[in-house]
């Protein structure tokens, strides 16, 4: 990456922060509306250890849910690809699930599993992740080039060999696209799920309690940590996709 590509967005970000600071100080914006960036930065410094430990909890939930949802999505897509019946039953259900506001289930799960466990949050993340992974994996498994299908027939390959040599490796870019889309969504789901009660050990619960206690700059410090966590997952997803699809044209 060259300086000419990095510089403009960084300069823009700094300019926005500076304008924000000036606006807050000059116009005297009250802190509950918008705290100054310097006040938020001061909170980030003061709360740094808490920020890291709460980000680790929320990030852990997001990661567990992401892995579980990824595995589930891929397995379901494989089952759907392997059987017409499974596909006909499963596909509409998963697509309908994509229309459900899944974080709305968080309070229900908290009631179901109790408020002393991470399970409700992880379950919400899992459900959020399953849909995009299932959809893109299923699409990848369906997209076999006719010439590859002919080739495997001419080689008298069994259905399992066809899957192993062509369908599964051919679907990898689609699977990785699903993972890349799901990774930042996992963080969003993990943070938002904490707003609905349960353990008070993650970023989301700290944001809501700080806001409730009129500690606006501190709430913003935790928001900043959530953004950082989301970016981390996004970059990790991007990196995984790049690594596993090197040398491919599609």
């Amino acid at each position, binding site marked *: 990456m060259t300086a000419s590509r990095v510089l403009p967005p960084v300069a823009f970000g700094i300019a926005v922060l500076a304008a924000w600071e000036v606006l807050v100080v000059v116009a005297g914006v009250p802190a509950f509306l918008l705290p100054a960036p310097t006040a938020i930065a001061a909170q980030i410094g003061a709360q740094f250890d808490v920020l890291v430990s709460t980000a680790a909890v929320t990030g852990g939930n997001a990661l567990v849910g992401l892995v579980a949802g990824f595995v589930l999505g891929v397995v379901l897509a494989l089952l759907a690809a392997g059987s017409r019946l499974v596909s006909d039953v499963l596909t509409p259900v998963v697509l309908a699930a994509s229309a459900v506001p899944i974080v709305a289930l968080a309070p229900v799960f908290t009631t179901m599993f109790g408020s002393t466990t991470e399970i409700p949050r992880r379950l919400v993340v899992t459900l959020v992740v399953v849909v995009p992974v299932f959809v893109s994996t299923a699409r990848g498994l369906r997209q076999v*080039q006719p*010439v*590859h299908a*002919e*080739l*495997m*027939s*001419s*080689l*008298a*390959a069994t259905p399992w*060999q066809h899957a192993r*040599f*062509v369908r599964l*490796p*051919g679907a*990898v870019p689609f699977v990785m696209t699903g993972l890349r889309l799901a990774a930042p969504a996992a963080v969003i789901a993990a943070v938002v799920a904490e707003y609905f009660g349960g353990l008070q050990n993650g970023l989301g619960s700290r944001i809501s309690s700080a806001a409730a206690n009129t500690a606006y700059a501190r709430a913003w410090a935790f928001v900043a940590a959530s953004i950082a966590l989301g970016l981390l997952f996004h970059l990790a997803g991007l990196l995984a996709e790049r690594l596993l699809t090197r*040398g*491919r*044209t*599609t």
Partner: protein
Amino acid sequence: MSAVSLHGVDKRFGEVHALDGIELTVDSGEFVSLIGPSGCGKSTLLRVVADLEQPSAGTVAVGGKAPRQARLDQEYGIAFQQAGLLEWRTVTENVELPLHVHGMSKARRRARAAELLELVGLTEFAGSRPSELSGGMQQRVAIARALAPSPRLLLMDEPFGALDEMTRERMQAELLRIARETGAAVLFVTHSIPEAVVLSDRVVVMSPRPGRITDIVGGRRPGGGDPTDDPTDLAPDDIEDVRESGTFFAAITAVREALRKGHG
């Protein structure tokens, strides 16, 4: 034993009469081209030989076996218009694919792939990905892959159709050399008259609706003949001489007239 023999082969797709009363024998080591306008059934005929389509009537033997058995025994190798390489496998792994599918040990298939890549002149690209190769190089990999199980028959469905003219002529010379070195019979579908003539011992001219054989014209060696009687005329160096020879133009004219007759 002949590489391919077809007797009274018919193929219908619903109302469409794709092949009608096909009689054709390809001798072992012989190079035979199928030529004709689009829709004459030449690709269908190749696919019947490959057991990718079932004939509606007639008998087909490939290396003396039923087509299905021939396919299971890897009696033939096939190359399509698209190279159809698996882009996530290296060049070597693509060449190995037929051997991998049939359970050959890794060491043996590595050795065989190295041999084949030398044959098609791509040794230095063994570890490359298909996306790093030009169209002509990809097609050479596809030919090497088709040759991997040492088939006695090579089926080719317009393999050079997507290549530019210069690459195409070079590939034709390569193919002739490879066919000579391996001794495999070749059944080659094309709609280029010069390509059919320059490559083939015999050019089979087909006409559409229903697809039938209208004529068989001698290629480089007018009148066909035993392909082993004069191995020197298969030398790749000679192919440029062939392209400029009188018999070449005579054969082109003969094929062109046969095609026109089939249309009329």
